[in-house]
């Protein structure tokens, strides 16, 4: 699905300028909203749906955004959080969802340490550059496989077992996790 919210042409140039600023903010903060959602809802398809809903709500609510009242990311994540709450109510029987109480604590911790976590995210880019071609190829195959198959599909298309491929992906995730820790420690993420 596309990550870009619908943008309508405005007849009013002032409004158009405001919309443009809003879109800039939205695009700049999309990764943070997306990461926020992944924290609370681990399944990709759910995240995609919630991300689309959030972007749509943000766009529809753009007139309510008051830049003087706080930063865009907090406002956007607040709306994303509301969508997660609704999702949780709809999917209350799912046992892989964290409870509301724990989710609230994670949100608070994320908010409190937003700068630190942003550093981690920035560090990830650097760390990915350090992966071998093969490792990066594996990630692209697995994270990018279509049809909801993930590793399973990537395994089928590569002729490897899903089990073996999963271990490789887990290993790479471990490498990246250690790398972002080290990078942030050394101040290299800024």
């Amino acid at each position, binding site marked *: 699905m596309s990550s870009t919210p619908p943008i309508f042409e405005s007849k009013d140039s002032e409004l158009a300028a405001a919309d443009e600023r809003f879109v800039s903010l939205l695009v700049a903060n999309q990764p943070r909203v*997306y990461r926020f959602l992944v924290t609370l809802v681990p399944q990709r398809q759910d995240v995609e749906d919630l991300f689309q809903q959030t972007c749509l709500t943000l766009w529809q609510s753009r007139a309510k955004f008051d830049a003087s009242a706080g930063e865009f990311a907090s406002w956007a994540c607040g709306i994303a959080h509301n969508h997660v709450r609704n999702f949780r109510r709809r999917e209350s029987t799912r046992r892989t969802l964290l409870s509301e109480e724990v989710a609230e604590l994670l949100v608070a911790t994320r908010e409190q340490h937003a700068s*630190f976590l942003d550093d981690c995210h920035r560090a990830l880019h650097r760390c990915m550059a350090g992966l071998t071609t093969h490792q990066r190829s594996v990630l692209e195959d697995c994270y990018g496989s279509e049809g909801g198959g993930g590793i399973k599909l990537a395994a089928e298309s590569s002729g490897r077992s899903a089990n073996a491929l999963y271990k490789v992906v887990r290993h790479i995730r471990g490498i990246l996790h250690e790398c972002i820790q080290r990078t942030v420690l050394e101040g290299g993420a800024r």
Partner: protein
Amino acid sequence: MTKHEVDRLKVLCEHYVAGCLTNSTLEELEQWLARDETARLVFLTYLEVHAGLGWEARSLGWGRGTMPGDLAHVAAATAPTGAQSADCRARVPALSSRTPLWWVGSLATVLVVLIGIWFTMRWPVFTGESIAKVRDVRHASGYGGRELLVGTELSRGLLDLQSGLLEIETNSRVTLILEGPAQMQLHDALHATLLRGNLVVRMAKGESGFVVNTPQMKVTDLGTEFGVSATPEGVSRVQVYEGKVRAEAADAAGLELVAGQMLSRQAGGALTPGTFKEDRFIRQFPPRRPDEDEGGVLYNRSHLERVRVAALPSGKAVVIDGRLDEWDRSVAFRSACEPPFASTYHVEGMMMYDAANLYLAAQVGDPEPMRNAGAREGMEFAGGSVIVRLAADRELGGPLKGSAEDVAMSRRKGTAPLPDSVSDRVANLILWHDARSGQARLKLAYGFDSHGTVIPEPGAGWSGRFVKDDDGRGYTVEFAIPWRFLHAGQDPPRAGDVLGALWMVHWSDADGILCRGQMVDITRPGFDREREHLRKIPPGSYFQFGPAWGRAEFLPATGR
């Protein structure tokens, strides 16, 4: 956080992103995240990797679809079971029991607040040394139903195995097969103390030197394979399968044993040769059936404090036929394992009495009913059983104070134990169906020292019957046990008595050998608060701890 804790949290993260958390691991993760900010931050940083890669994939056009973490996808995420799907078990890393409760010894390790370290530009320093690793598991659960899965790194500490089978390999290449219920203190790669349960030790070829202490003896391996057991009755046994061992006791002469020999020792007794029984210990994991599913951890949270004991109306008799037609069902209590097993593994228990007998009945939900085939000495309960504990002595009052702990302490100090610790009228009644003979069996032991253990033959004054449910998903058990078996024949309980009591049910694997899980109920709420600064008593050991027992209220006759 210790290194083990961080490693475990990362594994939980992997299960989370894979959609492979079970009820118990989800609960564990939630409890951890709820109480520990450092854990939340580790969790969030780990999720940053997963989220960041997902974002890269969608924004750089790697494609669309499921993240690699989404192994089980929606099907597993919504599955109405606490168990992992086959996909999950195959691919997510193994998960251990909760570290803080297992690894008491590592509590002294350094706790580092991640964000504080970040501010000071230092990364956490983790401590804790792995000395062994879990190699295989079967129906293994730890304290409070914690799952124990393959790959867990173990450090020095207490291993509390509530049920199932666990294979561990130490850093010295020693293989340990621990059968639950068991408690084992792992000291280092060559030294363990078995407090309760069955343990098989297998050394690598050409190596020796592993030492197992039990409450009654010390066993030193001299290049071999051997089994060691420690029972609640205070009996320790060693049996040699290959090579030889040396068995010693503080106040008894040491002996060397070779393959085919067995020794046992009771508290204060001598090392006594006994009969070697090949099947006394489980040396190999039973082969898995092609369709076998571990099915998650069976355990319950006790929610009942009392059971009412109905008086049998005068002139009426109970026919022990497993039909329960004569029973006053108004006194029935129901208990069940935690979801998603509540509808499959449950019990409806009842008690009645008259001047002559204690009557026990239960309808047990059990998909593998009446398969108890092991009946191994000291492990009769493991293949499926109902156990009732009753302090048939109104003078003891309540709550009970005695315990196995008190017995051990008094032995060490040479002081007198509490009266109920060694009372003949504190009875353990173990009821099971022997699948080999097709007969109901009864085992009795007394006091918290489990003295006087006896398995009276059928027809020796008691009667019992097991009947399988028509649908094969459970059984009914009915027993009449004369009060004299509880040493209360001269003064049986009467209306108005409130006596200490506890119920347990054990479920087995399909072979009727291995303990698959257990239920413990009729317990006294809040008893553990009285032990705030002491080690928690796991539910599987409540029976050894009087203050944990609930109560049985003996009702007056109603004349129905």
